């Protein structure tokens, strides 16, 4: 009688899948339901955006930055704008900075709404996803009035923003924030505090603070592990020092510090903080121009600069090298999702297949940001 062969299955959670956030591929070595390893395979969405920058010039690259991470495009706009301003020593007028912060924080709200909704959909609850998207549609309507587009905004320019706030927009934005705060509580009652959701998310894939720093995680992923690092507070830029807001940290109250539930709740709490920043910004907007004078033929002096922006996915780094011509020599974006892919292989050992989906959703990876 031959011995029973038990070997592990190799599954392919392919580029086409309903629940990887974008075009990602995982090669899963599984023993039944429990995984030995999940090896990510990225690159399906590579579009050579960084190379394109060398062709289109400084002003022309701004719409391309939207496509680096189309879910939170304002931050990439801001990063590029700040990098060019640092190269050419341009100062953005105060009202322009306020417009930037308002647009960015609305985008953070929209991005986090999408993330928490996707978490719901990935673990089987379709309803929270649609509720979150409904709220996100309202933000999209607001931003459409502000800059004319709903997803790839191209709102900011080198030296400020392209449009000032339209009349009546401030009241609408404040009315929306009044509408949103109870909806976040309702969302929590429906989904976040639900026992099944807590059971699915708590104690799944905890990341210790040391691991998070070693693997270069940023943003809510890092803060969920207890590391207090937020670029808006630690390396302040723009007018963020003028606002009063907190940086939520993961505390492991549902399980272990740095587990999926912590990462998920970070985003809910950051939404509340963004709402706070927005109210302060909208009430205190100064008068003045929103765009500094910048020549059409933008030729910054030769040199390099490095900028960090706190995007919805974390600390986004921009590195621009200029050689004095109208076209940049090298542009590089360092995004939080790319780093997060690195830790998936380590964390997936011992997880169940159902937990892999939770892990990806809690790390908030967005495929275009990984591959650019």
């Amino acid at each position, binding site marked *: 009688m031959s011995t029973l062969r038990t070997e592990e299955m190799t599954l392919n959670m392919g580029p086409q899948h309903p629940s990887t956030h974008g075009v990602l591929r995982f090669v899963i070595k599984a023993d039944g339901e429990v995984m030995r390893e999940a090896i990510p395979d990225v690159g399906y969405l590579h579009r050579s955006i960084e190379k394109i920058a060398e062709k289109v010039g400084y002003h022309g690259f701004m719409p391309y930055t939207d496509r680096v991470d189309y879910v939170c495009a304002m931050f990439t706009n801001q990063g590029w704008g700040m990098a060019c301003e640092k190269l050419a020593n341009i100062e953005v007028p105060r009202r322009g900075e306020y417009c930037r912060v308002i647009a960015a924080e609305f985008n953070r709200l929209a991005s986090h709404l999408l993330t928490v909704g996707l978490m719901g959909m990935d673990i*089987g609850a*379709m309803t929270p996803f649609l509720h979150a998207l*409904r709220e996100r549609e309202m933000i999209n309507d607001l931003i459409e009035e502000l800059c004319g587009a709903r997803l790839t905004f191209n709102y900011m320019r080198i030296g400020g923003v392209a449009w000032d706030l339209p009349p009546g927009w401030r009241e609408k934005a404040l009315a929306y924030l009044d*509408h949103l705060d*109870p909806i976040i509580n*309702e969302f929590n009652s429906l989904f976040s505090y*639900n026992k*099944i959701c807590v059971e699915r998310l708590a104690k799944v894939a905890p990341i210790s603070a040391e691991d998070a720093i070693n693997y270069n995680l940023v943003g809510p992923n890092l803060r969920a592990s207890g590391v207090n690092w937020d670029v808006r507070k630690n390396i302040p830029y723009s007018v963020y020092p003028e606002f009063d807001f907190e940086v939520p940290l993961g505390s492991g109250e549902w399980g272990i510090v740095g587990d999926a539930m912590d990462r998920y709740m970070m985003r809910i709490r950051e939404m509340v903080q963004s709402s706070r920043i927005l109210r302060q910004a909208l009430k205190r907007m100064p008068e003045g121009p929103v765009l500094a004078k910048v020549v059409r033929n933008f030729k910054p002096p030769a040199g390099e600069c490095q900028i960090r922006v706190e995007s919805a996915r974390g600390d986004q780094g921009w590195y621009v090298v200029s050689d004095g011509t109208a076209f940049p020599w090298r542009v590089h974006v360092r995004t939080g999702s790319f780093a997060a892919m690195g830790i998936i292989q380590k964390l997936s050992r011992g997880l169940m297949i*159902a937990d892999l989906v939770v892990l990806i959703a809690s790390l908030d990876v967005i495929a275009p940001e990984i591959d650019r």
Partner: protein
Amino acid sequence: MQKWIDSLIARGDFGPHPSHDLVYAIAIAVACALVLFLVAVPFASVVTWVERRVWARIQSRIGPNRVGPNGFLQWLADGIKHVCKEDVIPEEADARLFKLAPYLVVLAFILPWAVMPFSSALILADLNIGILYMTAITALTVVGVLMAGWASNNKWSLIGGIRSAAQIISYEIPAGLSIFPVVLMTGTLSMQGIIRAQGWEPNHWFMFANPFCFVATIILFVSSLAENNRTPFDLPEAESELVAGFATEYSSMRYLFFFMAEWGNMFIAAAIIATLFLGGWQFPRVSASAVVMNALQFITFNLKVLILVFVSMWIRGTLPRVRIDQMMSLCWKYFVPISFVDLIGTAVWVAIWPDGNPIAGWVMLAFGGAVAVLFAWRVTYFTRLARMELYFHPTI
């Protein structure tokens, strides 16, 4: 019905010397066909439309509303589309088992209709093992699902099939254990017998007869959700993980068979609960005419079943999915012990009060009413919190 057919034979409608067995067999076949085509299959089809509309309203959107009045013929359009699709069988799949699996699952959906007590006179066969028959037949689904998952030659389908087998088999136990308190109280397994032992007033339903039966109702409801692969237990067809689980490789009508069986099973599970715990077709005696009474009882039964089906759709729109190990621990660590406690508690209760305790009925009904009032308050709290526009048109 037998008397009616006998009178027809005596009148000579079937010829001078018909074989009684043949006439009865044909009559039964016709009756089965009537039940299936007038009730079972239309229900399984129309409920897809209802589910999509209910689901959509929960999600702040409108469901299908284009095909037919208010989208009522959406199921017909879907069915025709599926029939016209290409029937794909994977190359390495075991073709015979692959094709047989949907039929087994549909068999498990069709056979229990024989003992469905629509009213006091409308039941195809009042078997004296009625409820046992139903429970046994619905367990046939496991064979079909496992066959589908394995024969698909697809590792994801295999995982889905195995999950489903584990799930259905495990949840048979709390379901069966929750049926026993009722059997203890009535002493019979026949569907009509159980319904006749209850009254039409809510406090005479078995759900409110004693606190153990109240809990047993809830356990039975959740277990039947698990048996039907409904959220929160829809791991076998977990859309986000396994695309469609055991049914991934199926296309066109075979695929639809699986899901028609799932939705049809919802009716059957709801019928079991309505019969055992909610008083079945019981209706106060308002008329002497048997036809009127039967019609009212038919409506009552269907109403109770449809309300339970609505609740299961509502749960599907609310809750996320549990993981396989959590589902197992839920069944074995929570449901099975609680059902045992129910069983023993009911046994003690029946020993103390063999004829039931009317006060307990009122107390439990009051408790149930209090829960309902609390729920309604919570609903108004959330509605006022969100400050969104109210809208009471159910058909838009």
